[in-house]
């Protein structure tokens, strides 16, 4: 699987708040022999517009993404939610426009969430990381339901040395982020985070690992505010830190 050309879609959230996640993805992909490029005209996948009912605006983002990435071999992003949006909803948006539909399908087919790409395309399960911690994996809703990615991140985590992977007793339960929902309905959103965090604290894991900046920001921000004994970390960051730990 050497020499695959991969375009990185950083996602707006990672770009602004978690750029180290993007760096980790780049380093890990390169370590697996991929050539990584970064189209500078990328912005957001448009999910915030779609989910707040702004169909035209959401379509404009989809068009921009399609134009930016349709010549790429693969597009990889550190977010199951954004990847789910591209793969699942982009084709739907253009079902009445044959030409755009074809282009949307083509770009959707080569769009991958990071762990999905590592395990299913690169066939890499062991990145050579060591990370001495007890962690629980938080399944992002759109990743497990729209993208159908459930096992891939767990495969990667199971191959990390000195890492204890605690079973998630409620992998189905949303953390309450939900994009604009988190500020539009902050009361329920926070109540959902509290329930979710309570379950994770109960597992006694040191860290919650996820493949989505949204869930991490939401649960992490709430855990910090409440002084809960659990940290949050993106899967790519954990893996890259682990690779550095094991002395490259």
């Amino acid at each position, binding site marked *: 699987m050497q020499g695959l050309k991969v375009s990185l879609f*950083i996602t*707006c959230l*990672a*770009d*602004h*708040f*978690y*750029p180290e996640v*993007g*760096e980790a993805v*780049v380093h890990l992909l*390169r370590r697996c022999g991929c050539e*990584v490029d*970064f189209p*500078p*005209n990328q*912005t*957001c996948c*448009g999910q915030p*517009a779609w*989910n*707040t*009912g*702004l*169909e035209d*605006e*959401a379509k*404009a983002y989809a068009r*921009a993404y399609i134009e930016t990435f349709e010549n790429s071999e693969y597009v990889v992003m550190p977010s199951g939610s954004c990847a789910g949006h591209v793969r699942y909803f982009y084709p739907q948006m253009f079902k009445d426009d044959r030409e755009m539909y074809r282009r949307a399908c083509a770009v959707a087919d080569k769009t991958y969430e990071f762990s999905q790409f590592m395990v299913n395309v690169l066939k890499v399960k062991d990145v050579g990381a060591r990370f001495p911690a007890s962690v629980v994996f938080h399944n992002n*809703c759109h990743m497990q*339901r*729209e993208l159908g990615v459930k096992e891939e991140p767990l495969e990667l985590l199971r191959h990390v040395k000195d890492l204890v992977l605690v079973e998630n007793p409620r992998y*189905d*339960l*949303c953390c*309450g*982020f*939900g*994009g*604009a*929902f*988190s*500020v*539009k*309905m*902050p*009361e*329920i*959103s*926070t*109540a*959902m*985070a509290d*329930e979710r965090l309570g379950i994770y604290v109960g597992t006694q894991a040191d860290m919650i690992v996820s493949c989505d900046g949204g869930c991490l920001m*939401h649960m*992490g*921000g*709430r855990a*910090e*505010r409440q002084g809960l004994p659990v940290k949050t970390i993106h899967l790519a960051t954990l893996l890259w830190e682990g690779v550095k730990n094991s002395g490259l």
Partner: protein
Amino acid sequence: MPDLKTRINTALRDERLRGAVRYTADNLRTKRNAILADLNEQAAQGMAIGTFDDLRKQARRIKEHTLKHLDYYLEQAADQIRQSGGTVHWAADSADVVRITEEIIERRQAKKVIKSKSMASEEVALNHALEAKGIEVVESDLGEYIIQLAHETPAHIVIPAIHKTRQQIADMFGEVAGRQLTTDTPTLTRFARETLRQKFMAADIGISGANFLVAETGTICLVTNEGNGRLTTSVPPVHIAIVGMDKLVPTLEDLAVLLGLLPRSATGQKITTYFNMITGPRRPGEPDGPEELHVIFLDNGRTNLLGSKYEEALMCIRCGACLNVCPVYRNIGGHAYGSIYPGPIGSVISPLLTDFGEWTDLPQATSLCGACHEACPMGIHLHEHLVRLRMDAVEKGKADPGFTRLMKLWMTAWRNPTVYRMAAKIGRLGMRPFVKKRPDGTEVAERLPGPFAAWTNTRNVPPIAKRTFHERWAELEKEAQR
């Protein structure tokens, strides 16, 4: 009724309610998962008619076909009901159901009505209308009886009193009994049985809903666990069934598929304790059954959905599985939704049914996690319909204007890569005064102004990075060339 936010906040403060709802929702979910695993295993051994996914696919095909030919099946059902001695009524809306029922009551000089559980009757607020005319209406489903005593509406499609604790129920029953009751199940059910048995015997009219109505035979099907459905429909001299037009199933064979899904999805049972199939009133020579059988087919906006992007919502078999897995429902219960159809399916159909209020804000109360779609035995794309309803609200100008304008402005500007990059710089600067440095060197914002406070009121937020990924890329690119 207070607004949605107020209703939600009231529910969130009620720990007893939330505890009760979570307890039962989890229970139902666990039972459902177990029985579906069991079904899949049996199917693998050739001992069942199919796996859950097989049944779901078949059920969808049946419903798709039925909805496509609904006019045909409605007529067929009506013919069959008439042939077996029943009377058919057509109700366009709530008022029609009330009028038709009142006409029957008046003609029969009826005073007392007993009811088995029917969401259609709740939808048209029938009890309220009849009680206003001085008719005694008694709910005979245990859960419905409880909420009737509490003067409430159902908090769940299948488990109306999901929000009540055992103690609350014992207290309410005790008040009716005039003595203190213990909280054990035998005591509570014995009290309900003794009280309701008299009501069944005294009732002039029994009113039921229908879980399914088989078109080829005109058969009303009732799925219950308490036997009250059977008494309601066979003891009083008149039986009225209120049947949503979406309840039609073409054949008995089709019924087998849907019946394989309903109890499993609703309560985690292979089949319920009672399953009634009612075809016509009492025939000459039969010892029991009602003298008159009336079927009221209720539209109330259902047929408007035919051929629309929401047609799929008519496939719902009202199992409540989407409520039991919903992370919002479990935290606020049913009443906070306001509509008598709560949870994901309620947030979809409440704004779509006519004569039923607007409910345009309900589709906002969801994180769009999709657990509902995953659990739905009919595979209804509930979370996608919720997004479409948000789009409709924006289009019709019914969405929150301030929020929509803000989102539109932001989303339109951000599409431009130059503006997007510039916004990061401005945002970083703007956030600066609110960023605190922690002892470990990391930074955090705990209080942001304006619309951002909605986040920081309950959650910390990291500052926008000193250098965004866009700003870091050049370096990363150089690294590769080294």
